[in-house]
């Protein structure tokens, strides 16, 4: 287990696990805000479930039994809820699923039943003296934002979108560009782009195209014009009919096309 600065600027510290294939996979610890919101959702759900079950039990059972059943049920629910979901749903209670969080073993594996139990028994201590006061304090001090229960169970709450289809979309870039067909792949442009542009420059092109629609229009224009100017000079291109953004897109499309698909 090791830590590494995730980005060049190192503004986010991540935890890294090394799989048996010697591949380093990064775990992104969840922040206190999202964890708190997930907890809030779970607490509300537990309260709603308890209220529902209590009214049902009060109707179904005689008075002598219903008080015992309701007290036991509400108590058991608070414990079973978290442990059950964490073990059955690979570390996701409904609140965590909603916020895109997951509890994992610190080695990146699913939690075991005893581990989840210990983690949740730890809540009693984390909850002291008022609503997760101690747990919150410990989580603020721990680099991975773990509360005491997590430390004792060697678990970690990570950000994980689960079915990563939405995030996978980012990797669909080449197809997106080809489909958009802003500019047909000019063989000469493709040749120049492939041979004269460095890896950094190609990354810049790809990133700029991907992010353009999220930029403020003014910034989008300025950035694309600057980049366009740079590439015109570097590749010795004239093409006065293309705007900076059109040139950037044409170049990105050229480098994104599969080499075999070149015409």
């Amino acid at each position, binding site marked *: *287990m090791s830590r590494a600065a*995730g*980005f*060049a600027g190192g503004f986010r510290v991540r935890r890294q*696990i090394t*799989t048996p*294939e*010697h*591949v*380093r*996979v*990064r*775990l992104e610890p969840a922040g206190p805000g999202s964890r708190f919101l997930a907890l809030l959702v779970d607490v509300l759900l537990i309260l709603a479930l308890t209220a529902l079950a209590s009214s049902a039990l009060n109707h179904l059972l005689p*008075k*002598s039994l219903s*008080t*015992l059943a309701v*007290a036991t049920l509400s*108590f058991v629910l608070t414990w079973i809820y978290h442990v059950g979901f964490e073990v059955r749903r*690979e570390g996701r209670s409904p609140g965590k699923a909603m916020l895109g969080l997951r509890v994992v*073993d*610190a*080695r*990146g*594996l*699913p939690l*075991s*039943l*005893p*581990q989840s*139990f*210990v983690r949740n*028994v*730890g809540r*009693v*201590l*984390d909850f002291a003296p008022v609503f997760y006061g101690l747990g919150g304090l410990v989580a603020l001090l721990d680099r991975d934002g773990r509360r*005491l229960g997590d*430390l*004792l*169970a*060697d678990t970690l709450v990570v950000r*994980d979108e*689960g*079915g*990563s*289809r939405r*995030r*996978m979309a*980012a*990797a*669909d*870039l*080449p197809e997106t560009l080809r489909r958009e067909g802003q500019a047909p792949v000019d063989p000469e442009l493709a040749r120049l782009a492939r041979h004269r542009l460095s*890896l950094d420059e190609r990354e810049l092109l*790809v*990133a700029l195209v991907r992010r353009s629609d999220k930029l403020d229009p003014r910034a989008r224009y300025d950035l694309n014009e600057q980049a366009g100017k740079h590439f015109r000079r570097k590749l010795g291109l004239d093409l006065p009919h293309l705007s900076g953004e059109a040139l950037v897109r044409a170049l990105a499309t050229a*480098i*994104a096309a*599969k080499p075999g698909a070149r015409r």
Partner: protein
Amino acid sequence: MSLPLERLLADGRDRWRRLDELLDVAAKAPAWELGPERMREIVRLYRLAAADLNRLLAATADPELIDPLNALVGRGYRFVYGARRVESFGGARRLVRFFTREIPAGFRGARRAVVVASLAFGAGALLGFGAVAVRPSFAEDLVPGEFFTSSPRERVAEIEKKEERIATVAQAADFGSQLYTHNIRVSFLAFGLAAATVVGGIWLLFWNGVILGAVAASYVLDGVGVFFVAWVGPHGALELPSIVFAGAAGLVLGHAFWFPGEVTRGAALRAAFPTVWRMLIGTSAALVLAGLIEGSFSQLSAKTVPYPLKIAVAGVLFVALSLFLFGRRAADEGRQGEAT
């Protein structure tokens, strides 16, 4: 030389998406429903994706490109290496085995911690008792307000004169459930404190012992010691050991956390989980029983149940609990282990 970035993305895209879909299916379906073919496909695609991630990391630092694949490989890793343990109680026979065999085995594996926790509690009880016996005014300082009565004798006389406090099953059930939910919470707190700090857990047990000893002494000094034993005994025979056991479970985990020895802290904790979890489940079960007894039988005065009978019940419960948890010999366990 690493593959060009765009080539890597174009080549990998389809198999990443397929792996993503398969993992979605796998998350919902049990392993047997998935079938060996798809299982093998997941493993193959996971290995390819892991290799792709390595290449991608060599080619770029762009989080928007790396993160999705990183998340996918993480999911694949969890699936492939997180052997899906069938960790449910799985049927009545398994449940019975868990309570009759595994829980006592857990306790026997933690004898030393149980001894340390018992000594802390016992030393506190002796000190509390001794302090009040030597100077009765200490009771006022040591015993919390809700338990402190200036004259235990008067209180006993009042209880024995009035009607039974717990007269109906409903009252007993209500009071009992309040008691055991509270007691389980307290013992989980003792567990957590012992696990997180070791010393804090020992202190909590010691202090609870002091209070018990002080209350006992004030009743004994006032000549109503028999009432006290008959009142606390039936449920205390299970409840007091349970709180000690919860603290002991915390000590087992705290030892692994603070003194992992030659293995990593994570490995030490993981080795302690089976023992700790069995002890906590056993403790909770005993506390439910203790709470129900405390809410009913313990509250009955001499008018309904003679005190010697209550004390005898307390003795039987304590001996039964001790024999159940620690009675079986190591040799028996060895034979049992061979048989299974």
